[in-house]
């Protein structure tokens, strides 16, 4: 706690810089809203049909065989949730969770890297250097800010808006305030280093005592819970950011899928429960959205896994979500219904969901969403009634 105090003093001397760099993190924004948005990017392409099998589809067993969880928890509309996610099933029954099967961005190729970039920059084919959430911050209806959890800033938050920061815990002793001051002087003409160091100092002050929580090290399922807990701590701070972005890696299950997913679904389910606990009362006004860059093939491959597909699954949770519902449409698994005779055909444009959440959860204007934030996207109308 001493340390935090010292750092706050240093920051006071840099108030002008820091308020410009990270207003939501460093300064109380006044009429704070408790409405929060947590964006979880499931990197590597989660198999949506393994997470939420449509167990009454007549073709599912022929296509997927052992990939269909026999113990899946029946929800509604013929869908069942993988048995490793009982917490989310309970949230669904309490109307705090909803699912969007067969969702995809406008991209129709199958490269992880291109797909993640396009999902995050919000473009149709050409990757831009800035992310849609960063552009959204430039048009925010109030003094919003966002934080990403993890050692590198994801593309969705990169760009011109500076009220975005990233955080992961320290593992080494900290530099003295005098050294920081000198370094900030040295960075006077270096925009990249100055902005990053200033934002880091601001984020550190808020993160407080997270150092002991065991984050750091390799990415993977072991990190899911601590990352979501860290996001919850940031959001729950008085005057904390409105939006948190968490990247959970390791969903590319080309082989041995059942075992890998058992572990990942468990970690995701536990992580969302831990996030809820961390948020306390704020959970009631929070919307959580988890999505991958695309889905996976309908048919099982040679290694007990699945390959890159198209239509995927979005998971929505939180007290703000109008839950207990399956959203969008189910295109069906008949060979003739599949996209390119291999993938689930997309029924919902991911941008529609993003827009619906930004508009109805946090108050963005439709005009900005259709043009400046998701460029040339008027055709992908915001989904109404998510929250």
């Amino acid at each position, binding site marked *: 706690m001493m340390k935090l105090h010292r750092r706050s003093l240093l920051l006071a001397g840099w108030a002008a810089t820091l308020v410009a760099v990270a207003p939501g993190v460093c300064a109380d924004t006044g009429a704070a809203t408790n409405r929060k948005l947590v964006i979880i990017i499931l990197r*590597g392409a989660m198999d949506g049909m393994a997470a939420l099998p449509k167990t009454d589809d007549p073709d599912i067993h022929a296509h997927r*065989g052992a990939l269909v969880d026999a113990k899946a928890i029946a929800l509604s509309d013929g869908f069942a949730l993988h048995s490793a996610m009982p917490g989310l099933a309970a949230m669904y029954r309490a109307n705090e969770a909803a699912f969007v099967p067969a969702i995809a961005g406008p991209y129709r*190729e*199958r*490269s*992880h*890297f*291109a797909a993640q970039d396009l999902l995050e920059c919000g473009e149709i084919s050409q990757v831009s*250097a800035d992310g849609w959430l960063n552009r959204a911050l430039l048009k925010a209806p109030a003094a919003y800010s966002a934080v*990403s959890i*993890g*050692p*590198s*800033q994801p593309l969705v938050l990169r760009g011109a808006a500076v009220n975005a*920061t*990233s*955080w*992961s815990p*320290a*593992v*080494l*002793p*900290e*530099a*003295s305030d*005098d*050294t*920081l001051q*000198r*370094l900030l*002087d*040295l*960075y*006077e*003409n270096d925009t*990249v*280093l100055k*902005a*990053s*160091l*200033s*934002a*880091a*100092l601001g*984020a550190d002050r808020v993160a407080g005592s997270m150092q002991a929580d065991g984050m*750091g*090290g*390799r990415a993977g399922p072991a990190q899911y819970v601590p990352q979501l807990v860290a996001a919850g701590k940031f959001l729950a701070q008085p005057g904390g950011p409105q939006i948190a972005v968490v990247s959970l*890696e390791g969903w*590319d299950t*080309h*082989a041995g899928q059942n075992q890998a997913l058992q572990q990942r679904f468990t970690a995701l389910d536990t992580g969302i429960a831990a996030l809820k606990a961390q948020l306390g009362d704020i959970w009631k006004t929070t919307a959580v959205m988890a999505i991958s860059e695309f889905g996976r093939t309908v048919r*099982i*491959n*040679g*290694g007990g*896994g699945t*390959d*890159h597909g198209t239509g995927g699954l979005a998971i929505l949770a939180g007290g703000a979500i109008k839950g207990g519902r399956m959203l969008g449409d189910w295109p069906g698994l008949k060979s003739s219904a599949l996209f*390119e005779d291999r993938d689930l055909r997309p029924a919902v444009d991911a941008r529609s969901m993003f827009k619906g959440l930004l508009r109805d959860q946090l108050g963005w204007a439709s005009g900005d969403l259709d043009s400046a934030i998701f460029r040339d996207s008027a055709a992908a109308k915001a989904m109404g009634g998510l929250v």
Partner: protein
Amino acid sequence: MSRLLAAIAATRFGMGARAGEIADATSDPRGWLDRQVRPGATVIPAGGLSSTREVFAARLDYAAMAGGPPGAGGADDEAQRARQQQVQRQAREGLAKEIEARSRHAATTPDSFAERWLRFWSNHFTVAARNAQTIGLAGPYEREAIRPHVFGKFAVLLGHAILHPGMLVYLDAVRSIGPSTQVAQRRDAGLNENLAREILELHTLGVGAGYSQDDIVEFAKALTGWTVSGTQIARLVAAGRGRRGEQGDAIEPGMVIFAEPLHEPGPRTVLGKRYGGEGKQQAAAILDALALHPATARHVAIKLARHFVSDTPPESAIAKLEAAFTKSGGDLATLARAVINLDEAWAPGQSKFKTPEELLVSAARAAGPQAAFGGAQRQVYTSLAQAPFSAPSPAGWPDDTAAWSGADAIKKRLEWANAVSQRMARNHSPLAFVEGALGDLAGEKTRQAVSRAESAEQGFTLALMAPEFQRR
């Protein structure tokens, strides 16, 4: 002027200047780099490190020792778990040794341009230690498939990289089976297109180069049969012949083999070209065609220009590298010389932001590995989010400023600099460090800040964090 060029040679082309290196390169900076373009420059001693075959043999020993199937019950089960943990511990220790050897070599080699060149290609053909199957293979893969071939023909490097057990396991090709083979029918198994897709997207043509999903599937079928010897594959092959596998079927484990019974029969068509003939020849013929494809030349040229010029390199630089690749038939020594002779890469402004690994290696070269790492290489790399052999995806580590300069990344760099500055201050002066590591690249502001520091420790923190040392 040539002092500045020597500093650029050692830091932008090389992996950072060791004490006295800038002075050595001053008389002829381009010649200093050119002399490193020779096959032996990238080979590191394998003493104490395991080969791929040794890694597989150790696993087989374990399998033989473990005896019956897991879950047989009681005390045996526990003993088996203990042995499994032992094998995994060995694999982790093997990886730690690989990291140390690689790190030590980078910190001490006089041929650090060759080492940067090696790392560029190793990243291009990423095999990461991501699970129990790959943890022991990533290190041997780089030493066996990449290091000896980075100054030869691109086609040869491509062949060695793809047809190495490390890559075949990492990208799931080992159990990709031709869908119409007997084995697939009997074992309810089939095609895995991961490797084929990544070769087209990452290793050769590049994304958006005009290949289709059909090309990926056809290429994946051509690649079926290429796998790694071992008991599992022996059983699969035997299943295709309608009988149970026998020990006698297994040749030495850990060898890349072509198992005809797993290969999808018939001719293949990839990028409009028909590949008939012997199944075994199909994949090699397709790889050869991809290696010389104009899109591959372009893809490689763009990546190299990005690595040596800037995140957004000018078309002039790309075009020169593309031409060098095309005219030489993908000769990588010619391409390396084209990089050295690329005027755009010698601009005085430092536009490339160092990755954490580049930062650590350059600090180790300037102040000694012990000072930079304190004997805990792997932990330090991990704390800066770039542990060797653990790239997050087959695309390898990112090579642009935005990926590495976020708020948290800078904080971690500062924490590291602050921690190591105390060790460095014991034996070195921070001003001498700046002079030796940066030479004429160090600006007046940085020299002043370092010389006015309140202690040698603080001087080192500022020197390591200075914009000129964070970039190259």
